[in-house]
């Protein structure tokens, strides 16, 4: 022992005492995903751009958002926002109006005329067939990576379902055009060219890759007698005519829309706006309707008659040029393969309804006849075995052709994924395998003590969401409600509350100082966003 002082005075410190040895659990970054990010089919870093919006950084938010989805103005209008419905703020006060914030960001891109810098192209050329959301995304990202892209579509204008399906009262045509102009900057668009009629896959042989995204536009048949009579039309076909600028009016007319999906809603609400007296007939109940809940809620605010458990089975012309539609009454029986209860005809309950126009909107199928050799197998997956071997290796397929949910963001994701796969193919490299699915941060992970609850009045004024999409200050306020689930937003709680100063601030984020951390767990508990969690055992 070194020389003791004359009196008991301590001059050495305590840092030799590595209290990390006391630990029986260790704090760490859990790497959980925010539910908005996790649920966004397009893979947007929603938390990331909300974080930028907290400081009003719209431009940076736009750039981050459009890394995953080039159509924020479109999606800000029509996306079914699974981000919002899964927001962890749902039970605390109310979910964040993410779609409205996205719309503001998208509108910024349009108002400022922003154009990402267009890189020069190399020698590679890719053909994209179908200018719907999938094809648009693929074309955009390929061109942004320096690939020459030619985009084909059977219609005059690009947009696919965005242009010719979704009505203008849901998605303004000017907004769509402005966004498409940016998205297709540098892409050669060739409209009015239908695969199978005007060209075939073989004619694209000199392209280095082909992306087929022609969607699903063939309306299913009702298999009802008389369904080919005049006055009976596919709902999609009707929407296309209206969206192409054709003048249609239904003043004084009875319109019957058969179906319960988004198409049926769009048809019904369009027909109503054109003066028609509209009835929607669906063979199951509201509960089983595949349409987005929001669409159904909107439709219910309009004087559109909803008839559930009704299925037309025969159409006959009347003497005065109308249509008599014979319908079954249905009841719900056992569940189908998709879990929805199967409708069963009630004997002896048939009835007639006389209308002027009938639109069918009971689902659509892709038409693969033009893509020589492409087909589905018995399990519903795509079968390329009959495709010309020279084309097969460079043929990529996406969008509604694939057996995946049919929404705009799913299609966008499909197109962006295709662009990555095509780029890898063109460079002769492997696509990185996606990492293991991470856990999602739930409301149990969040410490709500650090967030201020909106009161009833504030929640009510939020629910319309209108203010946010057109007011940057309101959008910034809304973004500031983001809990940053699972992701650190540098509040310093862990650093401040540690009794042992065992949380260190580094340029790479907060780290536990394992020499001293006793594993008390305060940091994890007081982490507002559920970034930190405790793992059992002493991590060396």
């Amino acid at each position, binding site marked *: 022992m070194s020389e003791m002082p004359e009196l008991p005075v301590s001059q050495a410190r305590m840092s030799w005492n590595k209290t990390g040895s006391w630990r029986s659990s260790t704090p760490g970054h859990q790497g959980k995903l925010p539910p908005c990010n996790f649920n966004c089919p397009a893979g947007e870093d929603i938390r990331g751009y909300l974080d930028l919006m907290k400081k009003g950084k719209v431009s940076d938010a736009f750039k981050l958002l459009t890394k995953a989805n080039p159509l924020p103005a479109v999606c800000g209008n029509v996306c079914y926002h699974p981000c919002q419905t899964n927001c962890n703020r749902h039970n605390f006060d109310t979910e964040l109006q993410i779609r409205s914030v996205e719309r503001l960001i998208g509108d910024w891109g349009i108002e400022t005329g922003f154009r990402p810098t267009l890189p020069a192209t190399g020698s590679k050329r890719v053909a994209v067939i179908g200018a719907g959301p999938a094809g648009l995304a693929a074309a955009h990202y390929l061109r942004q990576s320096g690939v020459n892209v030619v985009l084909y579509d059977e219609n005059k204008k690009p947009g696919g379902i965005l242009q010719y399906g979704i009505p203008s009262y849901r998605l303004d045509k000017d907004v769509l055009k402005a966004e498409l102009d940016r998205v297709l900057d540098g892409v050669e668009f060739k409209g009015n060219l239908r695969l199978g009629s005007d060209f075939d896959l073989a004619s694209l042989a000199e392209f280095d890759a082909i992306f087929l995204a022609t969607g699903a536009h063939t309306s299913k048949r009702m298999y009802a007698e008389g369904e080919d009579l005049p006055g009976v039309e596919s709902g999609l076909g009707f929407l296309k005519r209206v969206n192409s600028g054709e003048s249609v009016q239904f003043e004084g007319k009875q319109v019957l829309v058969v179906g319960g999906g988004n198409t049926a809603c769009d048809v019904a609400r369009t027909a109503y706006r054109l003066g028609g007296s509209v009835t929607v007939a669906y063979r199951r109940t509201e509960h089983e309707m595949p349409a987005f809940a929001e669409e159904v809620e909107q439709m219910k605010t309009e004087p559109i008659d909803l008839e559930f458990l009704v299925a037309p089975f025969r159409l006959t012309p009347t003497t005065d040029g109308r249509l008599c539609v014979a319908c079954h009454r249905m009841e719900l029986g056992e569940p189908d393969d998709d879990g929805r209860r199967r409708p069963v005809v009630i004997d002896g309950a048939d009835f007639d309804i006389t209308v002027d126009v009938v639109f069918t909107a009971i689902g659509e199928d892709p038409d693969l006849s033009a893509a020589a050799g492409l087909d589905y197998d018995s399990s519903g997956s795509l079968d390329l075995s009959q495709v010309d071997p020279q084309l097969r290796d460079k043929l990529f397929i996406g969008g509604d052709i694939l057996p995946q949910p049919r929404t705009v963001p799913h299609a966008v994701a499909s197109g962006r994924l295709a662009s990555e796969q095509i780029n890898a193919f063109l460079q002769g490299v492997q696509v990185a395998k996606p990492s293991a699915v991470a856990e999602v941060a739930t409301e149990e992970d969040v410490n709500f003590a650090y967030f201020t609850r909106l009161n009833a009045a504030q929640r009510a004024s939020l629910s319309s969401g209108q203010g946010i999409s057109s007011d940057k200050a309101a959008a910034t306020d809304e973004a500031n409600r983001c809990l940053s689930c699972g992701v650190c937003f540098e509040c310093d709680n862990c650093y401040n*509350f540690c009794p042992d100063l065992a949380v260190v601030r580094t340029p790479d984020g907060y780290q536990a100082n394992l020499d001293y951390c006793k594993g*008390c767990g305060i940091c994890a508990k007081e982490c507002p966003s559920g970034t930190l969690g405790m793992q059992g055992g002493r991590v060396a």
Partner: protein
Amino acid sequence: MNDRPDYEFCAGHDFYGHTACPGCGEKILFRHVLDVLGPDTMVVAPAGCGAVTDGVFPHSLSPVPYLHVPFGATPSAAAGVRAGLEMSGRSHVTVLAWAGDGATFDIGMGALSAIAERNENVLYVCYDNEAYMNTGMQRSSATPQGSWTTTTPAARLKDEPKKDIDAIMAAHRIPYLATGSPAYLDDLKAKVQRAKDIQGLRFLHLYSPCPPGWKSDPADSIAIARMAVESNVFPLYELYDGERFRLTHESESVPLEEYLKLQGRFRFMSDEDAKAMQDSVERSFAGMVARHDKSKVKQV
């Protein structure tokens, strides 16, 4: 990293390796108080958790001069340090008495009253973990009514309400009195800064969660401190010269249950006891506000 400074006094002065329990409230408080007061500080500390976990000879956690003193001697010793500093030309140094509830409410009460009456220039901090925790969790006059301790076992829980030390200190009309909580660090540190800049006897009553003594999960220390404030068990306020009162945090008045359920020391309380405690907390809080609100004529 955010734009808060990387360097703070304790973090930059080897404040590591102490032997306090995991989740200890006292060390959270000590660190932040020292961060505000800085190097021109001398600590006078009696027997208690804070002093013992500072370390044993020849080692010490404290980055500033630290004088251990006997249990009941803190207030007087602090006054003595102040006298010595003045007589040796070092009046700018803050004398920080750092004492637990045992040393403050009980054995040192008389001496504390004396230095308050004489308005000695000392910043006296009581870190209140509501029992004699260092010697094994025996009851003190700071122990809440209905709490288990090793000397108020389940068969005979503490009968008496917590001694109202703040009312006692307020009656001395000292220049500055404040309550503070580790769950509200901005509020606490602002109070330490104000206290630092005032001369005379400044008394800070700080809430100090103790996982082993309160039979709580170490991870809950901050949550408990928060619930104590939000349920009005430990309201946050300051009082200048015994007159000018300022409530520094509007609580949400959460049900007492939210506070009690996190701590095993309350699990023996009957529902009637809990109800009585709720009533007592409400009365106490209302009384304090009413008492001091009369003086709102002279606002801070």
